Every structure is written in structure tokens, then in C-alpha cells.
């Protein structure tokens, strides 16, 4: 990829204050930034000439998939690229100061004071053994801010500012005692403690639940409203669309498109940006393809199930509780019932801790129910002893969020697949033929057979997991967050693959996800869970477009929606791909 980035002047409003020289120019100017890693001759360039600028009160979003160089770019701005990095640029200026000439000391003076840096996961970036109040205090103390009493007052003020309730109590708590949302807000508080002019947030909401994400985005929005400049690093275009004034789209170290947000989302020019926007699953994308991958393969001897009205998987009043470390029983699944017909997809959506995964494991009978029961293909399932269930496990298989950990690390793809085939094959040749078919069905090549999962990309691993799940010719596949760990474009391909397979084989999916967009895209019916209970159940459009329960309403309201003013119309299955631009293959993106 050698597309030269063409910097476009940002179009945001700039307060022109003649007193303050800062406001007469951009706060941050980056021209032709190159970052490489390695020693001596083996320097690998990660960022190939990025250019952008930013004014106070403006938000620049750097968007890209994993490996695009977006985080490295952000870290360069605070001097955190590490020892073996090589940074060069035609210009790297912040508030009129040349960052290229900075020594370690200068960086320490700058970080926290002039530039605040918010990392993705507050649980790892906050000291576990230190109360969060101390952590925020530290940010002030490092820059010799005020007296002890003044700092204490400021800490409480900051916690209040980022919307932490009862700041006096929370300041004394340690990170593990706080919920994910509060932790992330405490991290924001420490980043803005010195009232920096620029805040850099690297995937600030990625690990968070939907409703918490909405709260954190609100905090960043408010900082922006107070005149702070904001750089938002994210893979999620919908999140970005909530905040950004300008967007830079990165791919493999190049900025492919750099434009005002409204323009970029309505009239994306670069084919890659177009692909990224099209790849986002949502209510509008139902029944349409998300990726431009064409499907062509033979079905071989794969079994196709006939649609019928009798439920293939039926759960009735499931209960499950676990004993916590404090000896108190917690009911994790509380009176959950559902029905899944052959060839349909039931989406289970909920926030972390809502009992989705436990429900899935009960349906798989990998966990014994405390009450209620599950039937599979009309016959008793959860009540059987494991010995009896084993014979019928071929009817129901599973795909996990993290395919890598679901493969024995010693095994090659071929061994994994051999292991997944049931009985009923004459000899090794018959098995090999079947494995070749399965790999073709999920879009893998025979050359992948000899590889180990570690040597595959994330998307390829999930394809192997799907092929393994298809191995025993199941009626139902339980998909537990199968696309959460994948990049948007890979997620699009995997979702398309799952939809194709359902069309071809009439297999049913019990599809679990925290992502409303994904759930709405793929599900026929939706089950919304909260704290172990079913709060709403019905057709996908009914539940997600016209939610009745307040919880569902809150969930739907917190979903960042990408405004797409120029509807491209539904893309039916089988439509040829948009032929434009270079091919962004999975290998490139990996």
C-alpha cells in the first residue's frame, strides 16, 4: 500500500483569541510522521508518513483495524513508543513546541500536564493496590500542583466532574472494587487532572458494556465542550461518529482518507473506508451481505435439515445459581425459556454478567441445570446422564469468542478437524475428503491443514472453529460472541459466512452477543437478558426497533448509530461485490 496521504485542512471552528497565541494556530501539527521499530538494519516501518492537525475544542478520530498503526501514532504524541522505536517527521509540534527535540524529561513534563492519555483497559492501567483517589492525586503531585489539601479537594472535584457518584467514598476504593464504567471514568479523571489541552483516548470504550460506553462517551463529549482537543483512537466507526469532527482512516500504516466526519461518513471516497462503513452490521443490513467476498463452493455431502415448526432446541424455565466466594448463592440464570426452530437464529443480547454465556452452556448441557429443562430435537436433553448425552452431542455444537483458546495448542488444523468428525466414515480417505469439503465451505484452503492455530490470522481461526462446529453435522450451533474479538471487516466476513451456511444447511443458531448491531443483523428473534432474567423476547425488529421494556429501551438508546445519510439500499445475497480499489484481503488486514 503506497497510497500517498493527502492531508485535508480541518474544517472545524476555531475560537480566534488574539491574546492567546495558541488559538492562532493549530494546537497539534503532525506532518509526514514515520515510526519504525527494530534494531539497526532491521527497522520495520509501522507508520508511513501520517499527517494531521488539531485545534482546541476539536476531536480527531483515528480509525483503523488492528495493525493499522493507529495506537503507535497516538503513543508517538506522548513519547511512549519505547526504546527501539525510530520516529521522524517533517513537523511534530504541540502548542508551538517541537516534540521531535524532546528528551525523556521533557516528555515527563508534558504527559499528564499538557496531554492526557487514556488507555483502553482501566483495570490494567490503574495500580490495583492504590485507591483511585491516590492515583488521581499522583497525577497532580507529579506536576507539583497545589498543596495536599488543595489536591484532595481537586480529586473530589474531578471525580464529580466525570460523573462518579459519591466521590468521597469512591476515592478511597481500589480499582477492583469499582465497576468497569467507574474505573474508566476514574482513569479519565486522572488524565484530565492537570486540565491538559489535549486528551488522547486509545480505544476508551472497547472493553465496556453498551450503556457504560454511552456514559464514557458523554464524559469525553463534555471535555470537548470545555474546549479540550481530543484524539480518539478506535476501531468502531459508530463510536467515532458520535464525537469526531475529523476522521483519519488508517490502514497498514497509511492514512488512506482524512476528511471532516460528516463528509467521510456520507461520501467516503476511499474504497477501504467504504468497505469499513458497509461492514458495520445493524438493523439496516439485515438480510444483506456485509463483505464483498463472493461465495462459490460445492456442498458435497453436507446434510441439509428441513425447516419445521417444531422447536429443535427448547429451554423451559431454566435456573442456575453459583456459590460465590462469600458463600452466598447467586442466581445467574433465573427463569429463562426460549424456543429455537430449525433454520432460524435466536439472538441473546445482554451486558456482561447478564447470564448469556451461562444460558448457552446450559443449552449445550456442559453445565447441569438447577431447575427447568432443555429438549433437543424434541427429546429430553438436559435431564439425561452425560453418558447418554455424548451420543447426541453431534446434534449441537459450539463456536467460542476466542477460537485460539478452544484449540489444543499442539494440534494442527488437520488434527483439530479429524477430531471433530463423528463416526460413520469408512476410512481415513473418506475423512480427508470430508475435511477438504468443510474447509472449502468456510473459505479455507487445503494448505491451511498443516498449520497450527497460532500461525493463522484471527479470521482464519474463527473459520476453523466454524468448520469444526460443522464437522458433526449439527442441527444447532451455539455461537458465543463469535465475532467480538474480530476486526470489523473480518467480522463482516464471518457474519456473512454464518448467514450463507444457514441458507445452505438450514442449521439453527443460538447467537450470543453484547453487540446490538450484530444481534439485529443476524437474528430472526431476540432474547434480551439482564441480571439473569429475560426482559424481552420476540421478533428482532419488534424488540429492537420498538422496545417495550425500559431496560431494552435504555440499551437501544445507548447504541451509537452511524448516520448514513446516503442509503445504498439493501444488498441482497449473492450480489456481486462492489468492484473498486485495491483488494483488502484478510492477509493484508491481519
Amino acid at each position: 500500500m503506497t497510497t500517498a496521504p493527502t492531508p485535508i485542512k480541518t474544517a472545524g471552528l476555531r475560537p480566534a483569541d488574539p491574546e492567546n497565541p495558541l488559538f492562532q494556530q493549530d494546537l497539534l501539527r503532525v506532518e509526514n510522521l514515520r515510526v519504525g521499530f527494530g534494531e539497526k538494519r532491521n527497522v520495520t516501518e509501522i507508520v508511513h508518513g501520517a499527517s494531521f492537525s488539531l485545534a482546541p475544542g476539536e476531536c480527531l478520530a483515528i480509525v483503523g483495524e488492528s495493525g493499522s498503526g493507529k495506537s503507535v501514532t497516538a503513543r508517538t504524541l506522548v513519547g511512549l513508543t519505547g526504546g527501539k522505536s525510530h520516529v521522524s517527521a517533517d513537523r511534530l509540534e504541540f502548542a508551538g513546541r517541537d516534540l521531535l527535540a524532546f528528551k525523556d524529561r521533557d516528555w515527563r513534563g508534558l504527559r499528564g500536564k499538557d496531554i492526557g492519555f487514556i488507555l483502553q483497559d482501566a483495570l490494567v492501567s490503574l495500580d490495583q493496590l492504590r485507591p483511585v483517589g491516590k492515583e488521581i492525586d499522583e497525577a497532580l503531585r507529579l506536576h507539583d500542583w497545589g498543596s495536599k489539601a488543595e489536591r484532595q479537594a481537586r480529586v473530589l472535584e474531578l471525580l464529580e466532574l466525570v460523573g462518579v457518584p459519591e466521590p468521597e467514598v469512591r476515592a478511597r476504593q481500589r480499582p477492583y472494587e469499582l465497576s468497569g464504567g467507574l474505573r474508566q471514568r476514574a482513569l479519565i479523571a486522572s488524565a484530565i487532572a492537570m486540565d491538559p489541552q489535549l486528551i488522547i483516548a486509545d480505544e476508551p470504550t472497547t472493553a465496556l458494556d453498551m450503556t457504560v460506553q454511552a456514559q464514557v462517551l458523554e464524559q469525553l463529549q463534555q471535555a470537548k465542550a470545555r474546549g479540550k482537543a481530543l484524539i480518539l483512537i478506535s476501531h468502531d466507526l459508530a463510536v467515532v461518529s458520535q464525537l469526531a469532527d475529523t476522521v483519519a482512516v488508517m490502514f497498514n500504516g497509511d492514512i488512506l482518507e482524512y476528511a471532516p466526519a460528516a463528509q467521510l461518513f456520507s461520501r467516503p471516497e476511499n474504497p477501504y473506508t467504504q468497505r469499513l462503513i458497509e461492514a458495520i452490521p445493524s438493523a439496516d443490513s439485515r438480510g444483506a451481505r456485509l463483505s464483498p467476498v463472493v461465495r462459490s463452493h460445492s456442498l458435497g455431502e453436507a446434510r441439509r435439515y428441513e425447516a419445521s415448526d417444531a422447536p429443535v432446541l427448547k429451554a423451559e424455565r431454566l435456573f442456575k445459581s453459583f456459590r460465590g466466594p462469600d458463600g452466598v448463592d447467586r442466581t445467574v440464570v433465573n427463569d429463562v425459556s426460549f424456543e429455537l426452530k430449525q433454520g432460524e437464529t435466536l439472538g441473546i443480547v445482554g451486558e456482561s454478567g447478564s447470564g448469556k454465556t451461562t444460558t448457552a452452556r446450559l443449552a449445550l448441557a456442559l453445565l447441569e441445570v438447577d431447575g427447568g429443562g432443555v429438549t433437543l430435537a424434541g427429546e429430553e436433553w438436559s435431564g439425561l446422564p452425560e453418558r447418554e448425552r455424548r451420543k447426541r452431542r453431534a446434534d449441537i455444537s459450539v463456536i467460542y469468542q476466542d477460537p485460539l483458546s478452544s484449540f489444543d495448542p499442539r494440534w494442527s488444523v488437520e488434527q483439530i478437524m479429524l477430531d471433530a468428525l463423528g463416526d460413520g466414515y469408512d476410512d481415513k480417505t473418506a475423512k480427508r475428503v470430508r475435511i477438504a469439503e468443510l474447509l472449502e465451505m468456510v473459505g479455507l484452503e487445503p494448505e491451511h491443514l498443516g498449520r497450527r492455530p497460532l500461525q493463522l490470522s484471527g479470521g482464519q481461526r474463527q473459520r476453523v472453529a466454524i468448520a469444526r462446529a460443522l464437522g458433526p453435522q449439527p442441527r444447532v450451533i451455539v455461537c458465543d460472541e463469535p465475532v467480538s474479538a474480530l476486526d470489523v471487516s473480518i467480522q463482516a466476513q464471518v457474519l456473512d459466512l454464518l448467514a450463507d451456511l444457514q441458507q445452505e444447511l438450514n442449521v439453527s443458531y443460538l447467537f450470543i452477543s453484547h453487540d446490538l448491531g450484530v444481534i439485529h443483523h443476524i437474528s430472526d428473534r431476540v432474547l434480551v437478558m439482564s441480571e439473569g432474567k429475560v426482559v424481552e423476547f420476540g421478533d428482532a425488529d419488534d424488540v429492537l426497533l420498538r422496545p417495550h421494556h425500559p431496560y431494552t429501551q435504555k440499551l437501544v438508546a445507548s447504541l451509537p448509530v452511524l448516520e448514513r445519510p446516503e442509503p445504498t439500499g439493501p444488498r441482497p445475497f449473492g450480489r456481486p461485490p462492489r468492484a473498486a480499489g485495491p483488494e483488502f484481503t484478510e492477509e493484508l488486514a491481519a
Partner: protein
Amino acid sequence: MSATPLPTQGAPAPAAPRRLAVPEWVRSFRPGIALAGLVVAFFVVAMIVPSLLTGHDPYAVNLEETLQAPSWAHIMGTDQSGRDLYARIIYGARESLLIGLGATALGMAVAILLGVLAGLGNKWVDGIVSRGVEVMFAFPILLLALLFVAVFGPSVTTEIVAVGLGTAPGYARMVRGQVLAVRDSGYVEAARALGHPYAKVVRRHIFPNAMRPLVVVMTLGVGQSIVWASGIAFLGLGVPPPSPEWGALLNAGRNYITQAWWLEVMPGVAIVLFSLSLTTLGRHLQQRLEGGVNR
């Protein structure tokens, strides 16, 4: 800020970094590792065919040449009976290495048995085995050695048993942790979901994966066991004279330390060199096997 300036504006995007035509094995050559490998190879040869490395007889008493300092004739000097020290160290390698390997093998065997039992058993089995291991932990190795020597008399076997049992509880804990981690791993659940019987899952997934890191631990353990055994021998609880076992050499030289420093230093260097080399190789192996990327 940058040691190698990258191309600036106007220059075309750089091509892939230039690689010198150096084969992979040369670039990854690490002199420390190679040296450690040589040392280990040397002592392994000494263990199998000691006569290849020395012409002297380690047991030949020569009262005319007692306590000679290192010279060309005796590169490591001679002991109080005029025996060539170099030859004794070479011939002693067999017993020392045997003790190291034997003790580690015994310790591992006991540890695997207990660790797997605790890791796969129910709450009660785990509790009983784990408490038992903790009780074993409370016994210092030296105390165990005293006990065994008192009961069975000093010999190579006694030393192996003492060091083996002494190191077993540490390994057992490690094995239990490994088994627990693998037992709750994604691929074990995936195998259950495919309908494989549990015994098969244990055999095919849990056992081999739990044992994988132990290869490295064993390499490290052999060196450590030799050090332990030497310590026990130094206290006179090891193999009786005239055996040239390294710990026994240390013990024998103890009385002459003011006249003949080499009697203490030379076997000491052999012990340090060998266990250091094994540890270096073990760490290297650890990085290669568990470093994440399997190439």
C-alpha cells in the same frame, strides 16, 4: 531521537528493510548458549565413556605424588593419595549426573502422580493431597537426607531418594497448577462439547498439555539436584569414599583446604559450570517453547 533516520518528505515509501544474506542460524547464534551446550556435551561424554577424556586412572594411588598443585602432568593437581583430580572429576561425572537425573526423575514421578491426582480429583482428594504436599514441604531436604542415610546407609540410591523426595513437593504444586489451568481451558470444554469421553479428554488434552512446561522444569531441576546432592555429600551423608562423586570430592578435600585449595575449587567449579550450563540451556528452551510464537 532516531538512530537511523527514516526517509523524509518527498522520498518514496521505503521498500522492505534490506536484509543481509545471512542464514537464519548465524543470525540467531548465541555464544552463551553454544558454550553451555558444549559444557553439557562434555560432561555427558564423561558420564558415558570417561576414558575418552583422560588417560589417568581415578583410583590409582600414588603416594609419591600426594597433594600436588596443578601442573602439566596433573592439570588439576592430585589429592592426598596422589590420585589425579581431573580424572576423578571426569569419572565422578557418572555418579553425579546419575544422582541429578535420578533424583529429578523420581521427584517428577512422585510430583506428577500427586499433582494430577489433586488437579483432577474432587474437592476432597485435592484437599487431602494438597495438605499432604504442604506437610512434605515443611521438611528440609537436609533433614530428609539425614533420615534416609540413618535408615539405609549412605549410597547413590539413598541420595537419589532423599533429593528426589525433597524436591517433589515443589514440582507437585506446579503440576497441580498446570492440570487445573488445562482442565478449565477452552479446548477441554470444546472437546467435551464434541462428545468425547472424559478419559479420552484427559489422555489426549489435559495430560500432554499439562506436562509440556515440565520439560523445561526438568532441565533446570537436574542442575539443582546435583547442587543439592553435592551439599548432602559435603556433609558426609553422600556416597562413601573412594567414590569420585563431586560432592564426595568436596567432602574429602575439606580437611586439606589450607594446603591444597584445588581439592575444593576444582570439583566446585565442575558443579557450578555444569548446573549453570544446564540452567542456561533450560532457560533457552523455555523461551523457545513458551515464548509464544511457534515458528
